[in-house]
């Protein structure tokens, strides 16, 4: 056990925890005033729901003894055997600390999906879906990549969750948008953000928390953590600029929502690469990531699916770009693996396989889970409830008394 590493990861776990309320503000500001609480609640409630699922069964499915490369065994059910001594995948941290650091990832990932079905889902069925999704999608994905499963064994590089967190939530978001259908008025009347200062506050908290997310994924207080910290910051900065430049060219204005969205796109894109690439590669990954995700959010209008707060466009597209970019820019001197530019095109192929497998698995299972919950409980609110907003119809509260 290493005291410095332990201290560092304790702080990082708290930073990652803070991202979920940040996400709540980021999303709630983009919703309409009548849905501000309902939208924030989708993220906030995950601090409760996902934490409980994780300590009961999620952690052991992800990090228990490997069964065929597909899933973890039940040895850590109810955290049995997870204690203060080092254990699990790390020798330098208390096993409990590794567990709770991972717990924060399990909290924010289903919260990310909620942007896709904002403003029209019933609260109870949404919670049931999220529990099922954590068990059948998140925990297996986490096992495949970090828990000794086949994707990690194949050599796929995912430093902090490009596949586990961002592509998985992006794929689930696409399934959600397709199963739930569009909001009333989508494409015919203006559905615009009600409080962009709230969204900017949320984006700032996400950026701050992301240092724990990516640097903490080094799982030690060392040079790799410093490299991940710097690549994370540089990519966010570059993507903020990349998004604004494309937006300026496309519409003639640089917007604050564009700055916030670009920064988050860059943070998403660098997540799988943070510990494998240099800061200059992060500059390129961010710049391209901001521009590519701007294109990503335009897709929904092109194809007519209502991914309300652009989870597919930012997390799906940005995560995919980041996973592929890791296979392009990885250098051995940083994270021990070489990518295309370092003369190892095979790595890009492996990254490509991991992208296809992640999208296929997460989209398919999420789609089935949504369909099942819809059939049993009914996912969508009534037209009247949708018109009145989720705040009053789902929670009997109003965000603003004006």
């Amino acid at each position: 056990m290493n005291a410095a590493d332990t201290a560092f990861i304790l702080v990082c776990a708290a930073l990652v925890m803070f991202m979920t309320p940040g996400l709540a503000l980021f999303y709630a500001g983009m919703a309409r005033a009548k849905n501000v609480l309902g939208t924030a609640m989708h993220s906030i409630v995950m601090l409760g729901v996902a934490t409980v699922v994780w300590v009961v069964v999620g952690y052991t499915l992800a990090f228990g003894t490997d069964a065929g490369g597909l899933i973890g065994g039940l040895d850590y059910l109810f955290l049995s055997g997870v204690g203060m001594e080092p254990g699990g995948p790390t020798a330098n941290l208390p096993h409990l600390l590794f567990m709770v650091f991972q717990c924060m990832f399990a909290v924010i990932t289903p919260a990310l999906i909620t942007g896709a079905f904002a403003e029209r889902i019933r609260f109870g069925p949404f919670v049931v879906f999220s529990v099922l999704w954590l068990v059948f999608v998140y925990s297996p994905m986490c096992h495949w990549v970090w828990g000794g499963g086949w994707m990690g064994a194949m050599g796929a590089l995912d430093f902090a969750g490009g596949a586990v967190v961002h592509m998985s939530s992006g794929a689930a978001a696409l399934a959600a948008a397709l199963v739930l259908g569009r909001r009333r008025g989508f494409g015919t009347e203006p559905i615009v953000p009600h409080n962009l200062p709230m969204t900017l506050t949320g984006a700032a908290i996400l950026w701050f928390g992301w240092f724990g997310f990516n640097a903490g994924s080094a799982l030690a207080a060392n040079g790799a953590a410093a490299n991940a910290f710097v690549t994370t910051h540089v990519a966010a900065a570059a993507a903020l600029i990349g998004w604004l430049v494309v937006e300026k060219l496309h519409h003639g204005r640089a917007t604050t929502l564009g700055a916030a969205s670009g920064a988050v796109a860059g943070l998403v894109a660098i997540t799988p690469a943070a510990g494998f690439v240099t800061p200059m590669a992060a500059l390129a990954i961010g710049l391209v990531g901001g521009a590519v995700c701007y294109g990503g959010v335009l897709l929904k209008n092109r194809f007519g699916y209502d991914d309300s707060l652009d989870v597919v466009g930012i997390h799906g597209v940005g995560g995919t770009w980041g996973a592929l970019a890791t296979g392009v820019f990885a250098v051995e001197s940083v994270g021990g693996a070489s990518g295309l530019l370092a003369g190892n095109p095979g790595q890009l192929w492996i990254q490509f396989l991991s992208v296809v497998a992640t999208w296929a698995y997460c989209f398919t299972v999420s789609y089935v889970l949504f369909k099942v919950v819809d059939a049993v409980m009914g996912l969508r609110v009534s037209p009247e409830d949708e018109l009145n907003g989720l705040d009053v119809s789902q929670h009997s509260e109003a965000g603003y008394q004006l």
Partner: protein
Amino acid sequence: MKKIEIITRPFKLDEVKAALTELGIQGMTVSDVRGFGRQRGHKEVYRGAEYQVDFVPKVKIEVVVADDMLAQALAAVQKAARTNQIGDGKIFVSTVDDVVRIRTGETGNEAI
């Protein structure tokens, strides 16, 4: 007596108020309103998608004047509120039958 309803740009409120006060007009009522005329609202852009916002914020100033003040008041308001850009707004004039000052019971021009 005439009622003048001025619908114009919010940032012109102070100038219109000053112009009317200079004429000796002693009271007015102001409300924040939204609407459109030939200006047809404005465009907003969120994440690359354009939205037409039909109702733009305007301010409505209501003031009642004696008949012989009308021409001066209209001239003063136009001078104060005009920017020569589309969206300067409109003035509606109507006849008022009577006015009552609640405190004293005065009516007509005395009560304005």
